[in-house]
């Protein structure tokens, strides 16, 4: 009962946070304006236009990216059975940053036929690198978690060096700052037509793993015991990996690589509901989204109008909270 209450509480907070977020921006908007913009949208009214076309997609993107990263982190920690895992151990983030940086710096195309290419190159970089890491991390059709971890770390370090090189070689100060925004995350390019991809990805993933939750929980006991308990370990791991790749890929392609949310939110979730509660996955995604919206709002309040790169805020808020959680709760991963 207590768990259900927590869940409803978080859901309520998401709504509240979104409403608060809608009131913040360059145009002054009262809560009446927001209600009117949502219920009787008038595109010729500048305030309505800003709320519906600019603020709402930005908040939704933060919600989806936060949700996707937190959910991916949860899966990843379960898969490699390691409390330190996050969605980026597959090299996704460094691949995406590298793709974007190469495009921004003009080393490959920046735009083509009116299409702005950095997000596409980020997506390509994310998937190519993830595939490479997976290729290095499996043997005889089986994912070997420890090998996958090491491959991810090795490839990421290599790509970080490459990213450094392209950052160094990029011509202008503006390009430099743009690359920084990419590698620390930014929701500034949010747009309605971009939202369906991460939304569909997250919805499908949540639906899928809602049915596989039992397998997930058994995997936490270790692969050998999972096999004896009848869990198709290899197949489950492939599914998890595919899901994490797609969700993380979309997230970093749209918002850059926002750090920390994928690491801490799964821990917060388990701290709130316990190790194996059936609402864990859903709550994890919601908490991730809530946290990300909050960080985005905070970043814009501290440094208006465009906000600080979001990764700075997530670390500033996330890390102390994480440490507090570790110290306060007698919380264990498994």
């Amino acid at each position, binding site marked *: 009962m207590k768990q259900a209450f927590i869940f409803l509480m978080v859901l309520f907070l998401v709504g509240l946070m979104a409403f608060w977020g809608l009131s913040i921006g360059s145009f002054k908007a009262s809560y009446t304006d927001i209600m009117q913009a949502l219920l009787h949208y008038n595109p010729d009214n500048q305030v309505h236009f*800003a709320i519906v076309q600019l603020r709402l997609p930005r908040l939704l993107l933060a919600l989806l990216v936060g949700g996707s990263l937190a959910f991916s982190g949860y899966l990843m920690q379960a898969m490699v059975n390691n409390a330190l895992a996050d969605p980026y151990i597959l090299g996704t983030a460094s691949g995406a940053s590298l793709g974007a940086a190469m495009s921004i710096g003009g080393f490959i195309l920046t735009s083509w036929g009116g299409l702005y290419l950095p997000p596409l190159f980020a997506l390509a970089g994310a998937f190519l690198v993830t595939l490479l890491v997976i290729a290095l991390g499996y043997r005889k059709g089986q994912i070997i978690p420890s090998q996958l971890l090491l491959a991810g770390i090795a490839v990421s370090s290599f790509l970080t060096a490459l990213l450094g090189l392209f950052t160094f070689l990029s011509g202008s100060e503006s390009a430099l700052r743009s690359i920084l925004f990419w590698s620390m995350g930014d929701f*500034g390019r949010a747009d309605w037509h971009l939202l369906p991809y991460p939304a569909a990805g997250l919805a499908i993933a949540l639906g899928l793993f809602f049915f596989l939750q039992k397998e997930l929980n058994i995997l936490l006991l270790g692969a050998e015991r999972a096999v004896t308990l009848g869990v198709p370990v290899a197949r489950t791991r492939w599914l998890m990996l595919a899901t994490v790749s797609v969700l993380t890929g979309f997230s970093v392609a749209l918002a850059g690589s926002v750090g920390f949310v994928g690491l801490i939110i799964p821990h917060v979730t388990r701290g709130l509901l316990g190790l194996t509660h059936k609402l864990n996955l859903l709550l994890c995604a919601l908490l991730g989204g809530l946290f990300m919206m909050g960080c985005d709002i905070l970043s814009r309040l501290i440094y208006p109008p465009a906000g600080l790169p979001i990764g700075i805020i997530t670390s500033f808020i996330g890390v102390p909270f994480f440490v507090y959680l570790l110290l306060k709760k007698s919380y264990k991963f498994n």
Partner: protein
Amino acid sequence: MSIFAISFFYRRFYFFLVLITLVLNLACESKKTSPPQNGFILVTDDTGRKIKVPQNPQRIMALAPSATEMLYAVAEENTIVGRTQNCDYPDQVKEKPVVNNYPMDYEKIVLLKPDLVFTVEGITSAEVAAKLQDLNIPVYFQKFEKVTDIFRGLRDIGRLLHREKAAQRVIDSLGTELAQLRINKASPKLRVLAITWHDPIFVFGQNTLFTDKLRYLGAENAVTEIFAQPYPALTREYILKLNPDVLLGGTPAEMETTFFQQYPELKKINAYRHKKIFAPTDNLMSRPGPRVVESIRELKSFLAL
């Protein structure tokens, strides 16, 4: 609510910073040069650094493209011993040996043996200047916030190089041209937004030379708020609210397929609706040098004044 307090505090803080800079700047105006010792004199540059420079500099160079243009306007050409990889104006400069300024090529600059080096604040770091100083190469920083600061900068270079007359000739002719271009237009002033980057959208802020250039044309920078960074990042919403009359950043065709393709919401701004979109020459916009009047002339042609 503490967040509001923080934001408020930051704005106050920056206002305070700007104020201090202004006061310091005024203090620097009265530059004192001490009597010569062993062929060297002690001077104070625009950033308040006290440096020992030769009484008669014979080998000079600049570490910024705009400063190189300043030297070519005032100094004797054969005293200029080098240039950076980015210096490309005037054409003759391309014959001079190149010293990489980022990362600083210390060996090459030592090889060229300049006895005085000019640069612009923000282009050369304090660390690089200190190291050059250790190598017995004095670095003179200049700082330009207004168009008239450039004239003062030319005069300073003239004085240090004993080329006062040459400097005065340049200043006089630039001053005459500027007076001819000047427009004291009554309100409403055209509000101009100049962007330097699309993602995130970086623009020329209020505390840039661009703002002062527009003042000569009876127009104004659409960005009136003072940000910590000279080229702040703005949101689409902020630009919608600014609603600039003129947008600088690329030709209409370029902007249509890049900027407005990426941010169709911004098609609502006046500049787009009235087709007031122009591509200023990058070097003229970004270099605080003797071509500042040429830059103002170009801006005037965009404003169709």
